[in-house]
């Protein structure tokens, strides 16, 4: 029995759960809802098993002891853990708020990422740790950072939904343009990465060089000027379409049994949990680890600096909410910007800037 088997099972469970959640939204049949939840829980349990199995495989190969073997050293592993945190957060919300509505959104994302990882086989082989990563602080630093990222991801989703619910009536309003464009860019980047991946598979090269060398090579950074220009044109059309038909999202959300106020409240809750976790795990533990490994608790390397920027954005969110009393549209926009900064900290820095951290460096 190895971890891949369980990862495979959990992607299947998430995809089946997605179908059930959508059916549940359509028919509102209680039994369908229970099936959906059961499938999600099953997928989550299998995902958990897979994670721990991989941890053990890692420990057996590296021979560095359990504490230092947490499988979170490359993009493949961190994505898996990221999805795990999101599913944990989702299940907590479903349980606490007694609503299954978000499931139809979350499970497809989880299922797709898991399937993407599975087919792509992005560096599935276990790489032993380089010396700098062999620290017990790694465990605390990385797990807590990812828990916070997942909480921020959920706050992003709810903030976008809030904006969709409240601003769809006027296509020319700033907030409407803001959220449709941000969402469209997210979608476009994911699609472009998907295309890269397909193109990459066709060339049949080794998996190691995928992310760094192939990212956007099939689209925006294509060697052929025509394809690059076409990609930008498509991006433009895509953004336009999302802007033009963004109100559809409002219709979908109106089928959920959640109010805009609840969405805003959820956004805040997620940030109120994510912020302290991020501060402690991401910034403080990261600083302690850097102090021990490199002899500097803070060296302004790009990843650290971006973490700090993200921290400022969320500190800003909390202050304007508590001190200035911002609510609604304004504050949701800040939450969206916070997650854009988070994503850049997590992926952008590794893909576009250089630094000391190894995640994402495939």
């Amino acid at each position: 029995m190895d971890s891949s088997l369980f990862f495979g099972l959990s992607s299947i469970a998430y995809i089946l759960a997605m179908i059930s959640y959508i059916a549940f939204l359509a028919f509102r049949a209680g039994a369908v809802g229970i099936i959906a939840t059961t499938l999600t829980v099953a997928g989550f349990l299998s995902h958990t098993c897979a994670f721990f199995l991989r941890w053990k495989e890692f420990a057996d190969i590296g021979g560095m002891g359990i504490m230092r073997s947490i499988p979170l050293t490359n993009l493949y592993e961190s994505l898996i853990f990221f999805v795990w945190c999101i599913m944990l957060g989702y299940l907590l919300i479903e349980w606490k708020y007694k609503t299954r509505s978000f499931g139809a959104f979350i499970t497809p994302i989880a299922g797709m990422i898991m399937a993407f990882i599975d087919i792509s086989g992005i560096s599935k082989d276990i790489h032993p740790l380089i010396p700098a990563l062999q620290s017990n602080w790694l465990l605390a630093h990385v797990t807590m950072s990812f828990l916070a990222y997942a909480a921020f991801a959920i706050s992003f989703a709810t903030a976008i939904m809030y904006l969709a619910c409240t601003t769809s009536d006027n296509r020319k309003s700033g907030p409407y343009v803001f959220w449709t464009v941000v969402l469209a860019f997210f979608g476009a980047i994911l699609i472009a990465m998907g295309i890269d991946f397909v193109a990459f598979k066709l060339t049949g090269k080794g998996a190691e060089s995928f992310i760094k060398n192939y990212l956007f090579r099939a689209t925006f950074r294509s060697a052929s000027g025509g394809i690059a220009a076409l990609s930008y044109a498509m991006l433009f059309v895509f953004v336009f379409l999302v802007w033009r038909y963004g109100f559809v999202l409002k219709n979908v959300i109106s089928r959920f049994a959640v109010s805009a106020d609840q969405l805003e409240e959820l956004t805040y809750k997620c940030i109120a949990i994510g912020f302290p976790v991020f501060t402690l795990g991401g910034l403080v533990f990261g600083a302690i680890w850097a102090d021990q490994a490199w002899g500097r608790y803070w060296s302004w390397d790009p990843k650290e600096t971006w973490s700090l920027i993200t921290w400022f954005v969320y500190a800003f969110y909390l202050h304007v909410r508590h001190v200035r009393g911002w609510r609604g549209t304004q504050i949701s926009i800040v939450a969206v910007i916070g997650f854009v900064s988070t994503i850049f900290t997590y992926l952008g820095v590794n893909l576009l800037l250089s630094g000391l951290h190894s995640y994402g460096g495939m």
Partner: protein
Amino acid sequence: MADEKNRKTSVVDRIWNALASIKLAVVVFALISGTSIVGTLLDQSGDVSKNLKIVAKFVGSGAAPKVFAFLDAAGFTDMYHSWWFIALLYLFAANLIVCSLERLPRIWNVVREPIRALTFEQANTMPVRREVVFSRKKDEARPAVLDAMKSFGFHAVEAKAEDATVQFIAEKGRYSRLGVYLTHLSIVIILAGAIVGMKFGFNANLNLLEGTSSAVAYGGADKEIPLGFEIRCEDFNVSYYDGSDTPKSFKSWLTILENGKPVLIDGRETTEIEVNRPLRYKGITFYQSSYGFAPNRDAQFKFALIGRDGKKQGVSLKFEESFTIPGTDVKGKVADFSPAIAVDESGKLFTYAEIMSNPAVFVEFSEKGKVRYSRWILLRHPETWDVPDGKVEFVDLWGAQYTGLQVRKDPGVEIVYLGCILMTIGLYMSFFMSHARVWVVMREERGKVRFLLAGSSSKNRVAFESGIERLAQKLSAADKA
């Protein structure tokens, strides 16, 4: 005179008011973030050609040199140490301190003042209220209330307000209101620690060849920084994961020398350090950070030889010197060396790296002056150690590798850590604790007791409301029991 005095205080007031404004905080947040973004785009180690390329990507290669010259002059290529960035950080700290001081007295009053009894009218204006009717006597009501409140963690006391309203009052988490200030204070402490580190500490590098020692380290622009003692590298070693060139660990064995004599650290003369396990001495810390290969004529090849008689014998020799396999007349001469040997597709040997990731020596074996055979002997491949006349184990090439040490003195670290601990506590208090107050006001009406449950909470109103609701249910249940 008086006028001038007024004017002076008003300038101070103006500065104070500016520093007390949250608007300034927003501007400072934005400035720090915005400039930091530029800082992460550029290479901060001062690589000019790299930065020119980056700038060219944004503004085109025509304008790049000019834009780069501007950015360089403005300090963006070493931004985090530029005067204006540091000034921004000071401004940030001042803003934070003044903002907190402005609001502290009000909060402090709340914190100092314990909960008081309320008149009925006052209780009726509390944000959360609930009524419960109790069908029993007053004396029976009392234990029921205390009991119910206790089960929610409130240790209630009985009190009487000015209008003689009898009530039970309790509160929780009064001090959590200070969490925000503790958080802000911790940020100031961390910044103070960073300043202490910058003023009284240093950050330097030192590359030490095996067998050599140094009394200085090298800061920026190769400035010599005296250590106050000497440090010697006895040995350096890298170990690899099986079958790969991924380093598993790299270690140095270091000795501290005072007046030329070794100092005992933890009872030993030589201390082993590796990444994540530094050596500390007299406030200076030596971190293993890198390593490299520095070939030279004095380096010593170390072998363990096993002859036909099976006895093991260690030898150490320089390049082009010879050893004799014990119990034979066969001599081996070190004729060539490669720090990282590999075989290409056509079977040719070549050196693939500039560090000793797969060291190999080429040994010519001769007997009575005649060359009999020759071999590449690889340190990491024991199968190459067997030769027709015995076994030649390649143990080490000593004196050809240097250990790269990061040398730091930072008396501010403890202050920074203290700040981190306070921040953790402060954030916990601000986000996961709240100040909750409950009043259970009791009034008698036609032989029955009417309770007004009133409360307020500094945070998480929804959860608090449902808590009051459950308290009410508990009281009703006690009534029926």
